[in-house]
């Protein structure tokens, strides 16, 4: 099952900081998809909030690799991503499905160093 290849990584557990791309490659207040090993990760530069987020690119609803193409936004102050296929929304903080009872998505820590975007993994 492809959904099982994603697992949330918390900042303190990171063993590998993967240098993804220069930050100018990422749209402002939108997302882009990066590849790390066989994983597809959606990375979002939520410029208005001043925060970067990363999560699995796979929407758990219909198992399509599309989340990076969705719109980001916030609900009650919590950053979220809306899937472009059916507008299911997920918290970018906890991964939780905010408008339904789908499985939560995995989230990953992001850091910026010397204008490069790094995503944290445990392998």
């Amino acid at each position: 099952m492809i959904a099982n290849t994603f697992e949330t990584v918390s900042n303190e557990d990171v063993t590998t900081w993967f240098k993804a791309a220069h930050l100018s490659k990422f749209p402002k207040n939108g997302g882009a998809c990066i590849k790390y090993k066989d994983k597809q990760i959606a990375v979002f530069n939520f410029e208005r909030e001043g925060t970067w987020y990363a999560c699995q690119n796979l929407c758990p609803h219909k198992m399509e690799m599309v989340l990076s193409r969705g719109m980001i936004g916030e609900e009650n102050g919590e950053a979220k991503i809306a899937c472009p296929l059916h507008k299911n929304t997920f918290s970018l903080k906890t991964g939780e499905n905010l408008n339904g009872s789908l499985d939560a998505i995995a989230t990953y820590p992001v850091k910026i160093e010397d204008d490069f975007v790094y995503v944290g993994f445990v392998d």
Partner: protein
Amino acid sequence: MKTIVVVGNGMVGYKFCEKFVAQPESALYKVIVFGEEPRVAYDRVHLSSYFENQDAKALELAPRSWYETHNIDLICNEYVSDIDRDSKSVETASGSNYTYDTLILATGSSPFVPPISGVEKKGVFVYRTIEDLEDMLAFAKALKTQKNNPKAAILGGGLLGLEAGKAVMDMGLEPHVVEFAPKLMPRQLDKRSSNVLQLTLENIGIHIHTAKATNKIIGEGQITGMDFGEDDSLEVDMLVISAGIRPRDELAKRCDLNVGIRGGVVVNEKMQTSDPNIYAIGEVALYNQMIYGLVAPGYEMAEVAVNQILHKNDVVMKSSIDMSTKLKLIGVDVASFGEPYMPADKGLSIIYENKTKGVYKRINVSHDGKTLLGGIMVGDAEDYGILHQMYINNMPLPDNAEELIVGSRGEGGGSAFGSVIDLPDEAVICSCEAITKGQVCCSVIDDGNETVKEVAKATKAGTGCGGCKPMITDLVKESLKTLGKTVKERICEHFNYSRQELFDIVKTKKVTSYNNLLDLVGEGNGCEVCKPVVASIFASIYNETANRQETIQDSNDRYLANIQRNGTYSVVPRVAGGEITPKQLIAMGRIAQKYDLYTKITGGQRIDMFGAKLHELPLIWEELIEEGFETGQAYGKSLRTVKSCVGSTWCRYGMDESVSFAIEIENRYKGIRSPHKFKGGVSGCIRECAEARGKDFGFIAVEGGWNVYVGGNGGANPKHALLIAEKVDKETAIKYVDRFIMFYIKTAQPLQRTAPWLDKLEGGITYLQNVIINDSLGIVDELDKEMQALVDSYKCEWKEAVETPEIRERYTHFINSDEEDENIEFVSLRDQKMPKEWA
């Protein structure tokens, strides 16, 4: 401290607890609840939704913690096996004993299984509990792996049976409903309404068999069919029995309480059984020689029992119980109230039937024409709420009672009913929770609740079946008005404005970026609701393409293509009026072949090419543009196509050149973004081959000019466009439609098409005519100018995209790798391809 033992933890048992603990005196009592099922009380009315989401939690009426908070002992998975009335104690199947001061029997009912030979066979189910559903799901799943197109029958065409029919359809089985009576829902509907319902259900794919008496279930161990006698049979692989209910009165019988001949524990108007310390409520109670299989009377019984136990003796059950119901059955409205069908000596009926639309309405009126006695509605029960109120409150009927069911749309003058605010305060609005109009209004006016959600939370109104929500919405709105407040149509939590207000703000303050607008008049950081709304407004005011602020665009606009099931896209070039040269056809075919795209002719007379990967889009478009194509904006909330018939150039009936006109008008409006998509049609004569009246705007050639229609659409709720001008010349026709579209763009709500917009427009089509023809608002010059500016500033956004390197860069799946998305898989289909099925 006294002890109340509640036997049964269904909806009514739960409601008793809820109502009981809401009383301050309840602190003097200990409540113990026994449930035979393993879970807490859940919403059985909406059981079929379990098939859609398989989320048992969503059906729960209250979490287990609720019982703890209210100091109620909930003992699940425990069957109460006996009652000793002398020692006032109950015994459970596991051998424990509990004493009580007052006992509540809320054991409900069980599905009635008729004594047909073979009902014990494998594959035969009843439909009552979540466990039943889980068993059915497991069986259906196994069935589907064993054979193609398995069939499931439902025995019983009543309310629950039809729900079960939908449920097995959702499981992927071919549904067959078998009813003994000659019509569906025999208790609620007359023969004609039942026929209308049957037609509608058959259209969705449910097979209906009426007047069938099942003799035998056939099969060796497992069901293979049903035998109706006289060589009549039906092959099925599964059977769900839904042939009515039987009260669960075995416990009452065991301890010698009075029960009815056909079952049910006899109760008086206080809900007391023949033992004054024992009450019975819900489907187990036999009151006035009737069992009431609806939630609302059950809740009322719970209320009566609570009051009686707390010595509020004046609260008793009414002698006649309202059995009116409204429900959405498989997407079809079905409602009946009062006396649905009645003998001619009591009154007369007014009947409206429209089989083409699947609508049937009947109201029964007293001989003097003054009172409403009952009615039936199938297919359209929008007015059920108010009709039911007129019936319940004995309100006087208007002179022309037929207007109650055949009212016409948008012709100015208000509805025949008056308004819900005219109801008396004691009118019960929410019959599940018995909440009156007065209570709803008080909750707004005195308690300061301002939204339907808040009112529902405070009063519980609308939390049962939800059928009364439209009335509550109106009441909240009207009550707020009396306070001098208006209900704001706000876009989302980030903008406290309607789309129209936001449109004006952007225009007058000349805002050009989403971020600026948010800083200027919004709150927070935006969301997927307000972003595309604002994008659409920018497009309507500045004609800016979706390329400039790509991250506020809706999914499809961001990449100028329609995202499809597997995350690939479809490509639709504009083919104005549906006219295409052989050379263009060849070019399109060549390009589709090169990129291995699935092609199909669309409903809008053009060609859709599916299965393009993100990085292929600019490559495909580069080639299309080279061949002279432009974007068709099939992805946008904008003009789609103007459909045409072949017109007088070829057709021997044609009155005028419909193709030329369609091309002209499609090129005029192409690229214009709007609150929702809009489509047009041009027919060369009244045979109307272009189906122009099914579009947002349409022109039909007649002797002496063009007839102009506006506000039609197909889709889920088809509407014919209405005539706005007759026999006008082409220039005038275009002018009127220009103004209509511009007025719509400026005032509609987000994602509101022209038909519902026109529906909501106060004064309807007459008002619209006044605005755009007679210039009653003095705005037509402005509308004309704004439209012309949009027409003049059109540019093909795909051309812009392929020619601009920064925009082209967006079309890559990974930004750190040139690899493709390996997850996209296709399978072959009739010499073409399609996405691989979702796992």
